């Protein structure tokens, strides 16, 4: 119980630190601006494709700015504690290093949760508003009722959040042994890029005739998560993805986050503070 309490206190403090960082305010504002302004990027007036564009734009903003937030918040909030030596004061108290790492991750997770929930709700409001307008302007295109699956939008937001948690865990793993914040942040973006291009490597190595390439490709695919897997729902499908598919993605994300977190704890446990 005391362990959970200490992790909660550290997570709360991390979230409080994040809430007062101007860089994070800027990232969040940009994401909000993109979702709100998406419908004015072009003059769309031809029904469902516009809604598809709005949903893609909103989920894209969540993915892109969320990734920037996950990487910079994790790197910045972790290294700030080391550079200002506030970590020394905390770890000289009855606090385990594992609790410190979990507190940081949960604090960043809380920040990302707030970001994803707020953006998903904003996206739903924008989609609902535009869909209502289009239903009046083009009633024949909406003969079967609303086309946006709003539960799907929420599900897509939840899976984006899980993806961001995986990214934050991997960035924290790098930060646990890295000597500079810059390195951690750059490594975080590299992991993001690799994770999004994983499916290409996956296809390429499986087609290769060379055993060495297949081995190397397999190692890369195993070491880095595939971020495209988290895009199983986009909100405009007729129905939600199957429960088993969602469970598989959740297990995949939690598995990667758990392994990255365990390695970060191991690495940070050996670090000289």
């Amino acid at each position, binding site marked *: 119980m*005391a362990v959970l*309490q*200490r992790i909660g*206190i*550290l997570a709360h*403090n991390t979230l*409080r*630190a994040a809430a*007062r960082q101007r860089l994070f305010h800027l990232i969040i504002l940009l994401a909000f601006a993109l979702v709100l302004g998406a419908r004015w990027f072009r003059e769309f007036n031809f029904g469902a494709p516009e809604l598809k564009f709005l949903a893609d734009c909103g989920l894209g903003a969540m993915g892109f700015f969320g990734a920037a937030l996950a990487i910079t918040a994790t790197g910045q909030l972790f290294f700030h504690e080391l550079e*200002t*030596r*506030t970590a*020394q*004061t*905390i*770890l*000289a*108290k*009855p*606090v*385990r290093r594992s609790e410190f790492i979990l507190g940081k991750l949960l604090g960043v997770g809380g920040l990302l949760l707030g970001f994803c929930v707020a953006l998903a709700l904003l996206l739903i409001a924008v989609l609902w508003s535009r869909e209502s307008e289009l239903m009046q302007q083009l009633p024949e295109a909406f003969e079967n009722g609303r086309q946006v699956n709003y539960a799907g939008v929420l599900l897509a937001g939840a899976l984006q959040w899980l993806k961001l948690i995986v990214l934050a865990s991997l960035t924290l793993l790098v930060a646990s042994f890295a000597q500079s914040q810059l390195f951690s942040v750059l490594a975080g973006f590299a992991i993001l890029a690799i994770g999004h291009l994983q499916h290409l490597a996956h296809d390429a190595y499986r087609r290769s005739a060379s055993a060495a390439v297949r081995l190397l490709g397999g190692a890369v695919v195993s070491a880095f998560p595939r971020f495209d897997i988290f895009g199983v729902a986009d909100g405009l499908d007729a129905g939600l993805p199957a429960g088993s598919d969602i469970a598989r993605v959740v297990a995949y994300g939690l598995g990667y986050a758990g392994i990255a977190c365990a390695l970060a704890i191991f690495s940070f446990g*050996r670090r*000289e*503070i």
Partner: protein
Amino acid sequence: MALNPSARAPDRCAVEMRGIVKDFFVGLRGSRVRALDHLDLRVAAGQIFGLLGPNGSGKSTAIRVLLGLIQPTRGEARLFGLPGTDIHARRAVGYLPESPRFHEYLSGRELVRFHGRLCGLQRASLHARVEAVLAWVGLGEAADRRVEAYSRGMLQRLGLAQALVHDPMLLVLDEPTAGVDPAGAADMMALIRRLKAEGRTILLTSHLLGQVEEICDRVGILDRGRLLLEGSLQELVGDADHRWLNLGSLSAVELDELHSWLVARGHPAATLSAGPARLDRIYLNRVAGNPP
């Protein structure tokens, strides 16, 4: 396994460091720098122990090893009989780091509450304890100000408040007056004297030898990671190499006669000269005489 913070038995060993070696590896080639060289140190409960040494002598490294912040290359550090890495041992310790910085977005009160909660203080006792330590260090009126607005002296006092919030048996103070103006340093020393009067065990490092001499029961002099000298102040100033003669009652003429008498017997002219405080002289002699 848990310690009882109210038990301040004087015969217990609060700090025990045995054969501590700490090597750092620096640069691309990984050159070894020995920061602590077979350090043995023992601080009994209820004692005020002053660890002295020039910059880079290993004082802060010794403290970080003691608190489990870094692992020694060899040797063992214990707090009240438990390894410093054990969180039960750290429950009994309050730590004020050198030139402390705290979470600047918090107010003084929020910061002390944060540290109190980390130490397991429950809400019922937390509020009273936080207010008590803030008032004790003289920050009661500034408690709602953000830490970023605190002066250096106030930061030191806030550091002491967070170190004391859980009523620890042992206080580890790393250069508690470093970088503080004379008035702030005097305030801090007054607080440490009050802690001494309460019977707490204190391990402190300092450059201000006069102040250490004033409050410490025992002193250790560290240089290049080696403990050159360790003992009570009485033992140190009574060192066979350092006898002291009080010449305060002699007139200037008598002092001149004594000086001539010494020179005539082949003693160096500087043998009889006004000098700094006694501990200063011992410190300078030992550090200057420590071979690299």
